[in-house]
């Protein structure tokens, strides 16, 4: 049953403040290799918490996550090892401001994977070329526009050659004219077969790229299905009401 599942989440709960805030309240889902899953839902519904639980930036209160056949929520799991295989892109880029772009990208491959500098540099330049930023390799993050920063953040994660990429509202902090360039990078990544879990408010992206759309509200998955099912044939009132608000 789970043979091609890359990530399996079972009854995942995350409670804050002694259980008064139920950010996640029993999430079950499977993400297959190569699948593109887009998570949508109103603010505060637990999207970020779910995404951040997948690589254990948040420690779940209960439930289990199996990644690549290993239960990473167990006490024995080496989470650092698994995180190398799960790239993450944040809303606010989180580039290292004291390092230039190439150093941002090669720090983890050299220090963690033990690659030598030339090898890591070559890989970084190749990726920078792909996103059209090879000429900015020596620049520092504050010299770049928001869209450029986010494209760098994406290729920085790719330098570790992850099995899955997690995106938490990657375009929400961008000026409108820069959203497109970031979404384009994500689309081409999707086309190359990367497994992707994307939290976003870009419904156009969801329709175009997603294999499956998950709608969350109040810490649970309310509805999931193909983009067509979710956007054209919503079942629950909560989803209908949400879509009426975002698609005006």
């Amino acid at each position, binding site marked *: 049953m789970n043979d091609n599942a890359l990530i399996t989440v079972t009854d995942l709960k995350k409670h804050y403040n002694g259980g008064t805030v139920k950010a996640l309240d029993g999430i079950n889902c499977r993400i297959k290799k190569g699948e593109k899953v887009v998570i949508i839902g109103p603010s505060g519904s637990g999207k970020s918490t779910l995404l951040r639980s997948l690589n254990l930036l948040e420690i779940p209160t209960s439930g289990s996550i199996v990644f690549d056949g290993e239960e990473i929520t167990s006490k024995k799991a080496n989470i650092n090892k698994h995180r190398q295989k799960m790239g993450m892109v944040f809303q606010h880029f989180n580039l290292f401001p*004291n390092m230039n772009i190439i150093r941002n990208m090669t720090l983890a491959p050299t220090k963690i994977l033990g690659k030598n500098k030339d090898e890591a540099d070559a890989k970084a330049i190749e990726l920078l070329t792909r996103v059209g930023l090879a000429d900015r390799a020596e620049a520092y993050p504050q010299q770049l526009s928001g869209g450029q920063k986010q494209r760098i953040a994406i290729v920085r994660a790719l330098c570790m050659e992850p099995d899955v990429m997690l995106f938490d509202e990657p375009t929400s902090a961008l000026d409108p004219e820069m959203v497109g360039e970031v979404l384009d990078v994500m689309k081409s990544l999707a086309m190359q077969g990367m497994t992707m879990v994307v939290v976003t408010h870009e419904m156009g992206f969801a329709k175009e790229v997603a294999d499956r759309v998950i709608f969350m509200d109040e810490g649970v998955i309310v509805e999931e299905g193909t983009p067509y099912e979710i956007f054209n044939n919503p079942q629950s009132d909560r989803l209908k009401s949400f879509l009426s608000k975002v698609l005006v």
Partner: protein
Amino acid sequence: MFRPCFVFKIFRKGERMKELWNEILFVFGDGRHELMINGFLNTLKITAGALVLGIVIGILVAAVRSSFDKNRESMKKRGGIGYWVLSIINAVCKVYLTVIRGTPVVVQLMIMYFVVFVSAKDGVPVAIVAFGINSGAYVAEIFRAGIMSIDNGQFEAGRSLGFNYVQTMRYIIIPQMFKAVLPTLCNEFIALIKETSVAGYVGVMDLTKSGNVVAGRTFEYFIPLFTVAIIYLVIVMALTSLVGRLERRLRKSER
């Protein structure tokens, strides 16, 4: 005998500069300049030693305190002895910070010299230890505040790339933290240099004490005390400009 009010007259009337010079030769003559040089070197030794010790203690304490704050939740959840060990060390650090910052450094110095190291013959190492332990408490809080001032997103970016906690600190957080706290750290060191002037309380011949001794022997206070003041001032100004240059260089590396 030289009187301070003379100075102004001297400077007004250039021809009396020679008189001042003669006074200086007298005050620091008869081997008394060696006393001053020795005091100056002792002040440098105490400051440098205490600085190194303070930074080492500061890093360790700040590491314990901030890693406890940051990992408390996840360690508690994972259970095991690690959590309890870290809790106890954290509590010890808190007591250290409270006691050191809550009592005067002169008292700490005297306790070190007259109680802890009663058999010490040379006061300088004792002073290094006392001022180092004292400075460590302030440096620890500076470092901790510096670590807390770094956006948590930096930490998460590091962890999400696969760095463990220590690597994230080492490669990502601490370099940024160090830059952020450099001016504050500089102020702490300037304070430290001046604080060492109480070393005379336990008989250490530091710069201040030497000046005092010279004054006592020559019955001449103006020249020795102003010399002492000027030397402190020069050390502090040199350090300030050094750190300023370092800051500018660090900033340039981002442009």
